[in-house]
Protein backbone atom coordinates (compact mmCIF):
# COMPACT_ATOMS: atom_id res chain seq x y z
CA UNK A 1 0.00 0.00 0.00
CA UNK A 2 1.13 3.54 -0.76
CA UNK A 3 -0.34 6.39 1.26
CA UNK A 4 0.09 9.98 0.11
CA UNK A 5 -0.78 12.83 2.46
CA UNK A 6 -1.03 16.55 1.62
CA UNK A 7 1.65 16.44 -1.09
CA UNK A 8 2.94 19.80 -2.34
CA UNK A 9 5.51 20.31 -5.07
CA UNK A 10 6.48 23.46 -6.91
CA UNK A 11 9.12 24.55 -9.42
CA UNK A 12 10.26 28.14 -8.88
CA UNK A 13 6.97 30.07 -8.70
CA UNK A 14 4.85 27.35 -10.27
CA UNK A 15 2.84 25.19 -7.85
CA UNK A 16 2.40 21.85 -9.59
CA UNK A 17 1.00 19.69 -6.79
CA UNK A 18 -1.30 21.45 -4.34
CA UNK A 19 -1.98 19.13 -1.43
CA UNK A 20 -2.75 15.70 -2.85
CA UNK A 21 -3.90 12.98 -0.43
CA UNK A 22 -4.85 9.48 -1.49
CA UNK A 23 -4.13 5.79 -0.92
CA UNK A 24 -3.12 3.18 -3.46
CA UNK A 25 -4.04 -0.30 -2.32
CA UNK A 26 -1.97 -3.47 -2.68
CA UNK A 27 -2.93 -5.97 -5.37
CA UNK A 28 -4.89 -3.55 -7.50
CA UNK A 29 -4.23 -1.36 -10.52
CA UNK A 30 -4.34 2.28 -9.47
CA UNK A 31 -4.65 4.79 -12.29
CA UNK A 32 -3.69 8.46 -12.25
CA UNK A 33 -5.46 10.38 -14.99
CA UNK A 34 -5.76 14.03 -15.92
CA UNK A 35 -5.07 16.53 -18.65
CA UNK A 36 -1.56 17.38 -19.78
CA UNK A 37 0.02 19.69 -17.22
CA UNK A 38 -2.25 18.52 -14.41
CA UNK A 39 0.74 17.20 -12.42
CA UNK A 40 0.50 13.45 -13.11
CA UNK A 41 4.16 12.93 -13.99
CA UNK A 42 5.37 15.14 -11.15
CA UNK A 43 3.15 13.16 -8.76
CA UNK A 44 4.60 9.89 -10.06
CA UNK A 45 8.18 11.19 -9.83
CA UNK A 46 7.57 12.37 -6.24
CA UNK A 47 6.44 8.84 -5.35
CA UNK A 48 9.50 7.42 -7.08
CA UNK A 49 11.78 9.72 -5.08
CA UNK A 50 13.04 11.54 -8.20
CA UNK A 51 11.49 14.81 -6.93
CA UNK A 52 11.46 15.89 -3.30
CA UNK A 53 8.10 17.36 -2.23
CA UNK A 54 8.10 20.62 -0.24
CA UNK A 55 5.31 19.45 2.01
CA UNK A 56 3.43 16.28 2.82
CA UNK A 57 4.59 12.69 2.97
CA UNK A 58 4.49 9.40 1.08
CA UNK A 59 4.29 6.12 3.00
CA UNK A 60 5.31 2.82 1.48
CA UNK A 61 3.55 0.30 3.73
CA UNK A 62 3.93 1.80 7.17
CA UNK A 63 7.16 3.67 6.50
CA UNK A 64 7.31 7.32 5.46
CA UNK A 65 9.81 7.80 2.62
CA UNK A 66 10.97 11.12 4.08
CA UNK A 67 11.90 9.54 7.39
CA UNK A 68 13.87 6.66 5.88
CA UNK A 69 17.66 6.65 6.16
CA UNK A 70 19.54 6.77 2.80
CA UNK A 71 20.36 3.06 3.20
CA UNK A 72 16.71 2.14 3.81
CA UNK A 73 15.69 4.28 0.84
CA UNK A 74 18.05 2.31 -1.37
CA UNK A 75 16.57 -0.92 0.01
CA UNK A 76 13.09 0.39 -0.75
CA UNK A 77 14.11 1.29 -4.30
CA UNK A 78 15.04 -2.33 -4.88
CA UNK A 79 11.38 -3.18 -4.19
CA UNK A 80 10.20 -0.76 -6.87
CA UNK A 81 9.75 -1.63 -10.53
CA UNK A 82 9.21 1.04 -13.14
CA UNK A 83 7.87 0.89 -16.67
CA UNK A 84 8.82 4.08 -18.49
CA UNK A 85 6.83 5.73 -21.26
CA UNK A 86 9.61 5.15 -23.78
CA UNK A 87 10.73 1.88 -22.23
CA UNK A 88 14.09 3.32 -21.05
CA UNK A 89 15.80 0.12 -22.12
CA UNK A 90 19.59 0.23 -22.25
CA UNK A 91 20.44 0.52 -25.95
CA UNK A 92 23.80 -1.21 -25.66
CA UNK A 93 22.30 -4.32 -24.03
CA UNK A 94 20.27 -7.16 -25.52
CA UNK A 95 16.77 -7.98 -24.29
CA UNK A 96 18.22 -10.67 -22.03
CA UNK A 97 20.88 -8.36 -20.59
CA UNK A 98 18.31 -5.62 -20.02
CA UNK A 99 16.03 -7.93 -18.04
CA UNK A 100 18.97 -9.45 -16.19
CA UNK A 101 20.38 -6.04 -15.25
CA UNK A 102 18.61 -5.63 -11.86
CA UNK A 103 19.57 -9.20 -10.95
CA UNK A 104 23.23 -8.62 -11.88
CA UNK A 105 23.21 -5.53 -9.71
CA UNK A 106 21.53 -6.86 -6.61
CA UNK A 107 20.83 -10.58 -6.64
CA UNK A 108 23.23 -13.05 -5.08
CA UNK A 109 22.69 -15.79 -7.62
CA UNK A 110 24.68 -17.72 -10.18
CA UNK A 111 24.46 -16.77 -13.83
CA UNK A 112 22.37 -19.82 -14.69
CA UNK A 113 19.92 -19.02 -11.88
CA UNK A 114 19.65 -15.46 -13.17
CA UNK A 115 19.14 -16.73 -16.70
CA UNK A 116 16.37 -19.05 -15.53
CA UNK A 117 14.65 -16.14 -13.82
CA UNK A 118 15.01 -13.95 -16.92
CA UNK A 119 13.51 -16.64 -19.15
CA UNK A 120 10.69 -17.14 -16.64
CA UNK A 121 9.67 -13.45 -16.71
CA UNK A 122 10.13 -13.15 -20.46
CA UNK A 123 7.79 -16.13 -20.82
CA UNK A 124 5.38 -14.43 -18.40
CA UNK A 125 5.21 -11.35 -20.63
CA UNK A 126 4.83 -13.61 -23.70
CA UNK A 127 8.19 -12.67 -25.15
CA UNK A 128 10.23 -15.66 -26.10
CA UNK A 129 12.87 -15.95 -28.85
CA UNK A 130 13.89 -12.31 -28.49
CA UNK A 131 16.60 -12.80 -25.85
CA UNK A 132 19.51 -11.84 -28.07
CA UNK A 133 17.89 -8.96 -29.91
CA UNK A 134 18.71 -5.34 -29.16
CA UNK A 135 15.93 -2.85 -28.24
CA UNK A 136 16.29 -1.17 -31.64
CA UNK A 137 15.52 -4.49 -33.35
CA UNK A 138 12.14 -5.09 -31.69
CA UNK A 139 8.73 -3.38 -31.96
CA UNK A 140 7.34 -0.77 -29.55
CA UNK A 141 4.97 -3.33 -28.01
CA UNK A 142 7.83 -5.78 -27.48
CA UNK A 143 9.94 -3.02 -25.91
CA UNK A 144 7.11 -2.36 -23.45
CA UNK A 145 7.01 -6.07 -22.58
CA UNK A 146 10.77 -6.09 -22.02
CA UNK A 147 10.38 -3.03 -19.83
CA UNK A 148 7.66 -4.81 -17.82
CA UNK A 149 9.83 -7.93 -17.57
CA UNK A 150 12.77 -5.84 -16.28
CA UNK A 151 10.47 -4.11 -13.79
CA UNK A 152 9.17 -7.38 -12.30
CA UNK A 153 12.30 -9.54 -12.50
CA UNK A 154 13.30 -8.64 -8.92
CA UNK A 155 9.77 -9.44 -7.68
CA UNK A 156 8.96 -5.84 -6.65
CA UNK A 157 6.32 -4.85 -4.12
CA UNK A 158 5.51 -1.67 -6.03
CA UNK A 159 5.15 -1.22 -9.77
CA UNK A 160 4.96 2.22 -11.39
CA UNK A 161 4.04 2.67 -15.05
CA UNK A 162 4.27 5.96 -16.92
CA UNK A 163 1.89 5.84 -19.90
CA UNK A 164 2.61 2.16 -20.54
CA UNK A 165 0.56 1.99 -23.73
CA UNK A 166 1.36 5.30 -25.36
CA UNK A 167 2.36 4.91 -29.00
CA UNK A 168 0.87 1.43 -29.23
CA UNK A 169 -1.99 0.28 -31.43
CA UNK A 170 -5.28 -0.33 -29.53
CA UNK A 171 -4.94 -4.10 -29.61
CA UNK A 172 -1.37 -4.15 -28.26
CA UNK A 173 -2.34 -1.47 -25.71
CA UNK A 174 -5.10 -3.73 -24.38
CA UNK A 175 -2.69 -6.68 -24.22
CA UNK A 176 -0.21 -4.57 -22.20
CA UNK A 177 -3.00 -3.31 -19.89
CA UNK A 178 -4.22 -6.84 -19.24
CA UNK A 179 -0.68 -8.06 -18.69
CA UNK A 180 -0.04 -5.38 -16.06
CA UNK A 181 -3.32 -6.18 -14.34
CA UNK A 182 -2.63 -9.93 -14.33
CA UNK A 183 0.86 -9.40 -12.92
CA UNK A 184 -0.53 -7.04 -10.27
CA UNK A 185 -3.04 -9.65 -9.09
CA UNK A 186 -0.66 -12.60 -9.43
CA UNK A 187 2.20 -11.10 -7.42
CA UNK A 188 0.07 -8.90 -5.11
CA UNK A 189 1.87 -5.74 -6.24
CA UNK A 190 0.78 -2.17 -5.58
CA UNK A 191 0.62 -0.85 -9.12
CA UNK A 192 0.33 2.84 -9.98
CA UNK A 193 -0.25 3.72 -13.63
CA UNK A 194 -0.06 7.18 -15.10
CA UNK A 195 -2.22 7.22 -18.23
CA UNK A 196 -4.14 9.26 -20.78
CA UNK A 197 -5.76 6.22 -22.29
CA UNK A 198 -9.49 5.98 -21.61
CA UNK A 199 -9.53 2.35 -22.70
CA UNK A 200 -7.19 1.63 -19.78
CA UNK A 201 -9.48 3.57 -17.46
CA UNK A 202 -12.48 1.42 -18.40
CA UNK A 203 -10.52 -1.84 -18.62
CA UNK A 204 -8.24 -1.92 -15.58
CA UNK A 205 -9.20 1.09 -13.44
CA UNK A 206 -9.63 -0.62 -10.08
CA UNK A 207 -8.85 2.73 -8.51
CA UNK A 208 -8.80 5.96 -10.48
CA UNK A 209 -7.40 9.28 -9.29
CA UNK A 210 -8.25 12.30 -11.41
CA UNK A 211 -5.91 15.29 -11.12
CA UNK A 212 -6.74 18.77 -12.24
CA UNK A 213 -4.46 21.78 -11.84
CA UNK A 214 -2.43 20.00 -9.20
CA UNK A 215 -5.48 19.09 -7.11
CA UNK A 216 -7.10 15.70 -6.66
CA UNK A 217 -10.45 16.48 -8.32
CA UNK A 218 -12.04 13.03 -8.10
CA UNK A 219 -11.29 9.46 -7.09
CA UNK A 220 -13.19 6.24 -7.60
CA UNK A 221 -13.08 3.21 -9.88
CA UNK A 222 -14.10 2.22 -13.40
CA UNK A 223 -17.69 1.53 -12.32
CA UNK A 224 -18.10 4.79 -10.45
CA UNK A 225 -16.62 6.88 -13.26
CA UNK A 226 -19.65 5.99 -15.44
CA UNK A 227 -21.99 7.33 -12.80
CA UNK A 228 -20.18 10.44 -11.67
CA UNK A 229 -21.72 13.84 -12.21
CA UNK A 230 -18.42 15.64 -11.65
CA UNK A 231 -18.34 17.81 -14.77
CA UNK A 232 -14.54 18.14 -15.07
CA UNK A 233 -14.20 14.36 -14.91
CA UNK A 234 -16.96 13.65 -17.42
CA UNK A 235 -15.65 16.36 -19.77
CA UNK A 236 -12.22 14.69 -19.68
CA UNK A 237 -13.30 11.06 -19.81
CA UNK A 238 -15.98 11.55 -22.46
CA UNK A 239 -14.05 14.02 -24.59
CA UNK A 240 -13.91 11.59 -27.51
CA UNK A 241 -17.00 11.18 -29.71
CA UNK A 242 -16.96 7.43 -29.31
CA UNK A 243 -17.02 7.47 -25.50
CA UNK A 244 -19.64 10.25 -25.53
CA UNK A 245 -21.93 8.14 -27.72
CA UNK A 246 -21.40 5.09 -25.49
CA UNK A 247 -22.35 7.17 -22.45
CA UNK A 248 -25.47 8.52 -24.12
CA UNK A 249 -26.41 4.97 -25.11
CA UNK A 250 -25.85 3.77 -21.55
CA UNK A 251 -27.98 6.60 -20.15
CA UNK A 252 -30.74 5.64 -22.55
CA UNK A 253 -30.54 2.10 -21.24
CA UNK A 254 -29.13 0.40 -24.36
Amino acid sequence: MIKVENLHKSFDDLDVLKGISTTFEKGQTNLIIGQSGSGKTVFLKCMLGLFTPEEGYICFGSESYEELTPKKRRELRKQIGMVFQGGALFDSMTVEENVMFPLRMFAKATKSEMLDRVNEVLKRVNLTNANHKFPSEISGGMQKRVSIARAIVNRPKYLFCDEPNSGLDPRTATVIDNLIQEITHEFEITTVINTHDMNSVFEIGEKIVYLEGGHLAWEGNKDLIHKTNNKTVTDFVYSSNLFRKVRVAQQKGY
Partner: protein
Amino acid sequence: MDYISSTGQYFIMIKDTFKRFTKGSVLRNLIIQEMNDLTVRSLGIVVFISFFIGAVVTIQTALNLNNPFIPKSLIGFAARQSIILEFSPTFVSIIMAGKVGSYITSSIGTMRVTEQIDALEIMGINSLNYLVFPKVVAMMFYPFVIAISMFVGILGAYAAGVFGGFVDGDLFLRGLQEDFVTFQLVYAFIKTIIFAFILATVPSFHGYYMKGGSLEVGKASTTSFVWTSVIIIVCNYIITQLLLS
Protein backbone atom coordinates in the same frame (compact mmCIF):
# COMPACT_ATOMS: atom_id res chain seq x y z
CA MET B 1 26.14 33.44 -11.46
CA ASP B 2 25.37 30.43 -13.65
CA TYR B 3 29.11 29.72 -14.02
CA ILE B 4 29.59 29.66 -10.25
CA SER B 5 26.62 27.37 -9.76
CA SER B 6 27.78 25.07 -12.60
CA THR B 7 31.28 24.91 -11.11
CA GLY B 8 29.79 23.95 -7.75
CA GLN B 9 27.57 21.36 -9.42
CA TYR B 10 30.62 19.92 -11.23
CA PHE B 11 32.50 19.38 -7.95
CA ILE B 12 29.40 17.85 -6.33
CA MET B 13 29.22 15.49 -9.32
CA ILE B 14 32.86 14.51 -8.81
CA LYS B 15 32.18 13.82 -5.12
CA ASP B 16 29.07 11.75 -5.91
CA THR B 17 30.94 9.78 -8.58
CA PHE B 18 33.15 8.29 -5.90
CA LYS B 19 30.28 7.31 -3.59
CA ARG B 20 28.09 4.16 -3.37
CA PHE B 21 30.11 1.96 -5.68
CA THR B 22 28.51 -0.31 -8.25
CA LYS B 23 29.01 -4.06 -7.84
CA GLY B 24 32.65 -4.96 -8.59
CA SER B 25 32.02 -7.51 -11.35
CA VAL B 26 29.75 -5.09 -13.23
CA LEU B 27 32.21 -2.21 -12.78
CA ARG B 28 35.13 -4.30 -14.06
CA ASN B 29 33.29 -5.05 -17.31
CA LEU B 30 32.31 -1.41 -17.71
CA ILE B 31 35.92 -0.24 -17.22
CA ILE B 32 37.21 -2.68 -19.86
CA GLN B 33 34.47 -1.55 -22.25
CA GLU B 34 35.29 2.13 -21.66
CA MET B 35 39.02 1.53 -22.08
CA ASN B 36 38.27 0.12 -25.48
CA ASP B 37 35.85 2.90 -26.45
CA LEU B 38 37.83 5.85 -25.09
CA THR B 39 41.48 4.97 -25.54
CA VAL B 40 42.06 1.99 -27.85
CA ARG B 41 39.61 3.26 -30.47
CA SER B 42 41.31 6.66 -30.46
CA LEU B 43 44.72 5.27 -31.31
CA GLY B 44 44.18 5.40 -35.08
CA ILE B 45 43.45 9.12 -35.25
CA VAL B 46 46.14 9.94 -32.66
CA VAL B 47 48.81 8.02 -34.59
CA PHE B 48 47.77 9.59 -37.90
CA ILE B 49 47.76 13.17 -36.61
CA SER B 50 50.95 12.75 -34.56
CA PHE B 51 52.95 11.40 -37.50
CA PHE B 52 52.03 14.22 -39.84
CA ILE B 53 52.29 17.03 -37.28
CA GLY B 54 55.74 15.72 -36.33
CA ALA B 55 56.66 15.82 -40.01
CA VAL B 56 55.32 19.35 -40.49
CA VAL B 57 57.13 20.65 -37.38
CA THR B 58 60.40 19.35 -38.84
CA ILE B 59 59.84 20.85 -42.27
CA GLN B 60 58.84 24.23 -40.78
CA THR B 61 61.89 24.29 -38.51
CA ALA B 62 64.24 23.27 -41.33
CA LEU B 63 62.87 25.88 -43.71
CA ASN B 64 63.33 28.62 -41.12
CA LEU B 65 66.95 27.70 -40.33
CA ASN B 66 68.77 29.94 -42.78
CA ASN B 67 71.67 30.93 -40.56
CA PRO B 68 74.75 28.72 -41.23
CA PHE B 69 75.91 29.24 -37.60
CA ILE B 70 72.88 27.37 -36.25
CA PRO B 71 73.53 23.62 -36.34
CA LYS B 72 71.09 21.38 -38.25
CA SER B 73 70.80 19.19 -35.15
CA LEU B 74 68.46 21.89 -33.83
CA ILE B 75 65.78 20.40 -36.09
CA GLY B 76 65.74 17.20 -34.01
CA PHE B 77 65.90 19.20 -30.80
CA ALA B 78 62.98 21.45 -31.83
CA ALA B 79 60.89 18.46 -32.93
CA ARG B 80 61.47 16.68 -29.60
CA GLN B 81 60.72 19.73 -27.49
CA SER B 82 57.56 20.74 -29.34
CA ILE B 83 56.17 17.20 -29.52
CA ILE B 84 56.94 16.11 -25.95
CA LEU B 85 56.19 19.39 -24.20
CA GLU B 86 53.15 20.66 -26.06
CA PHE B 87 51.85 18.85 -29.10
CA SER B 88 51.29 15.37 -27.67
CA PRO B 89 49.99 16.19 -24.18
CA THR B 90 48.03 19.36 -24.92
CA PHE B 91 46.98 19.42 -28.56
CA VAL B 92 46.22 15.72 -28.79
CA SER B 93 44.05 16.24 -25.68
CA ILE B 94 42.14 18.99 -27.46
CA ILE B 95 41.62 16.68 -30.42
CA MET B 96 40.45 14.04 -27.94
CA ALA B 97 38.03 16.59 -26.45
CA GLY B 98 36.37 16.57 -29.85
CA LYS B 99 36.41 12.83 -30.33
CA VAL B 100 36.09 11.27 -26.86
CA GLY B 101 34.39 14.28 -25.23
CA SER B 102 31.59 14.44 -27.78
CA TYR B 103 31.10 10.68 -27.52
CA ILE B 104 30.83 10.85 -23.72
CA THR B 105 28.43 13.83 -23.73
CA SER B 106 26.18 12.43 -26.42
CA SER B 107 26.02 8.92 -24.96
CA ILE B 108 25.23 10.13 -21.42
CA GLY B 109 22.94 12.88 -22.78
CA THR B 110 20.96 10.35 -24.81
CA MET B 111 20.61 8.21 -21.70
CA ARG B 112 19.25 11.27 -19.88
CA VAL B 113 16.76 12.09 -22.66
CA THR B 114 15.51 8.51 -22.93
CA GLU B 115 15.11 8.22 -19.12
CA GLN B 116 17.76 5.50 -18.84
CA ILE B 117 19.47 7.48 -16.07
CA ASP B 118 16.13 7.76 -14.21
CA ALA B 119 15.79 3.98 -14.60
CA LEU B 120 19.19 3.47 -12.94
CA GLU B 121 18.30 5.83 -10.09
CA ILE B 122 14.94 4.17 -9.49
CA MET B 123 16.69 0.81 -9.27
CA GLY B 124 18.76 2.25 -6.41
CA ILE B 125 21.97 2.49 -8.46
CA ASN B 126 24.28 5.50 -8.13
CA SER B 127 24.08 6.51 -11.80
CA LEU B 128 27.12 8.80 -11.52
CA ASN B 129 29.28 5.99 -10.22
CA TYR B 130 27.89 3.61 -12.83
CA LEU B 131 28.38 6.01 -15.76
CA VAL B 132 31.27 8.34 -14.89
CA PHE B 133 33.61 6.33 -12.65
CA PRO B 134 34.47 3.70 -15.34
CA LYS B 135 35.30 6.55 -17.74
CA VAL B 136 37.62 8.18 -15.19
CA VAL B 137 39.44 4.88 -14.58
CA ALA B 138 39.62 4.08 -18.31
CA MET B 139 41.10 7.51 -19.02
CA MET B 140 43.91 6.84 -16.56
CA PHE B 141 45.33 4.71 -19.41
CA TYR B 142 45.37 7.81 -21.59
CA PRO B 143 49.09 8.53 -20.87
CA PHE B 144 49.86 5.36 -22.89
CA VAL B 145 48.08 6.94 -25.86
CA ILE B 146 50.15 10.10 -25.38
CA ALA B 147 53.37 8.06 -25.12
CA ILE B 148 52.50 6.44 -28.47
CA SER B 149 51.70 9.90 -29.87
CA MET B 150 55.13 11.18 -28.76
CA PHE B 151 56.92 8.21 -30.31
CA VAL B 152 55.02 8.40 -33.60
CA GLY B 153 55.37 12.21 -33.73
CA ILE B 154 59.15 11.95 -33.43
CA LEU B 155 59.14 9.14 -35.98
CA GLY B 156 57.21 11.42 -38.38
CA ALA B 157 59.69 14.21 -37.69
CA TYR B 158 62.63 11.89 -38.46
CA ALA B 159 61.01 10.58 -41.63
CA ALA B 160 60.23 14.08 -42.96
CA GLY B 161 63.64 15.45 -41.97
CA VAL B 162 65.78 12.63 -43.28
CA PHE B 163 63.81 11.39 -46.29
CA GLY B 164 62.84 14.96 -47.23
CA GLY B 165 66.53 15.83 -47.41
CA PHE B 166 66.37 18.57 -44.74
CA VAL B 167 68.77 17.00 -42.25
CA ASP B 168 71.19 14.14 -41.95
CA GLY B 169 69.88 11.19 -39.87
CA ASP B 170 72.81 11.30 -37.41
CA LEU B 171 72.44 15.04 -36.90
CA PHE B 172 68.71 14.64 -36.26
CA LEU B 173 69.32 11.91 -33.68
CA ARG B 174 72.06 13.99 -32.02
CA GLY B 175 69.62 16.92 -31.74
CA LEU B 176 66.99 14.60 -30.39
CA GLN B 177 69.28 13.61 -27.50
CA GLU B 178 70.74 17.07 -26.88
CA ASP B 179 70.06 18.74 -23.49
CA PHE B 180 67.42 16.16 -22.60
CA VAL B 181 65.88 16.87 -19.18
CA THR B 182 63.98 13.90 -17.78
CA PHE B 183 61.72 16.16 -15.74
CA GLN B 184 60.23 17.54 -18.94
CA LEU B 185 58.84 14.06 -19.62
CA VAL B 186 57.52 13.88 -16.05
CA TYR B 187 55.90 17.30 -16.56
CA ALA B 188 54.31 16.10 -19.81
CA PHE B 189 52.82 13.02 -18.15
CA ILE B 190 51.64 14.93 -15.05
CA LYS B 191 49.61 17.22 -17.26
CA THR B 192 48.43 14.30 -19.38
CA ILE B 193 46.92 12.65 -16.30
CA ILE B 194 45.21 15.91 -15.32
CA PHE B 195 43.87 16.33 -18.87
CA ALA B 196 42.66 12.72 -18.82
CA PHE B 197 40.59 13.48 -15.72
CA ILE B 198 39.20 16.62 -17.39
CA LEU B 199 38.43 14.66 -20.57
CA ALA B 200 36.44 12.09 -18.60
CA THR B 201 34.56 14.39 -16.24
CA VAL B 202 33.75 17.66 -18.06
CA PRO B 203 31.93 15.96 -20.99
CA SER B 204 30.18 13.64 -18.50
CA PHE B 205 28.98 16.71 -16.58
CA HIS B 206 27.54 18.27 -19.75
CA GLY B 207 25.78 15.04 -20.70
CA TYR B 208 24.51 14.14 -17.24
CA TYR B 209 22.92 17.49 -16.40
CA MET B 210 21.55 18.30 -19.85
CA LYS B 211 17.85 19.07 -20.26
CA GLY B 212 15.65 18.75 -23.31
CA GLY B 213 15.60 16.46 -26.33
CA SER B 214 17.83 15.24 -29.12
CA LEU B 215 18.60 18.78 -30.34
CA GLU B 216 19.92 19.65 -26.89
CA VAL B 217 22.13 16.53 -26.95
CA GLY B 218 23.85 18.01 -30.02
CA LYS B 219 24.16 21.41 -28.35
CA ALA B 220 25.52 19.83 -25.17
CA SER B 221 28.19 17.99 -27.21
CA THR B 222 29.34 21.26 -28.77
CA THR B 223 29.33 23.11 -25.43
CA SER B 224 31.20 20.23 -23.85
CA PHE B 225 33.93 20.39 -26.53
CA VAL B 226 34.32 24.15 -26.06
CA TRP B 227 34.52 23.94 -22.26
CA THR B 228 36.81 20.91 -22.21
CA SER B 229 39.21 22.70 -24.58
CA VAL B 230 39.09 25.94 -22.55
CA ILE B 231 39.72 24.11 -19.27
CA ILE B 232 42.60 22.08 -20.79
CA ILE B 233 44.27 25.25 -22.11
CA VAL B 234 43.88 27.15 -18.84
CA CYS B 235 45.13 24.15 -16.83
CA ASN B 236 48.03 23.80 -19.26
CA TYR B 237 49.09 27.36 -18.46
CA ILE B 238 48.75 26.86 -14.69
CA ILE B 239 50.63 23.52 -14.68
CA THR B 240 53.42 24.94 -16.84
CA GLN B 241 53.75 27.96 -14.57
CA LEU B 242 53.87 25.74 -11.49
CA LEU B 243 56.17 23.00 -12.76
CA LEU B 244 58.52 24.63 -15.23
CA SER B 245 58.98 28.26 -14.27
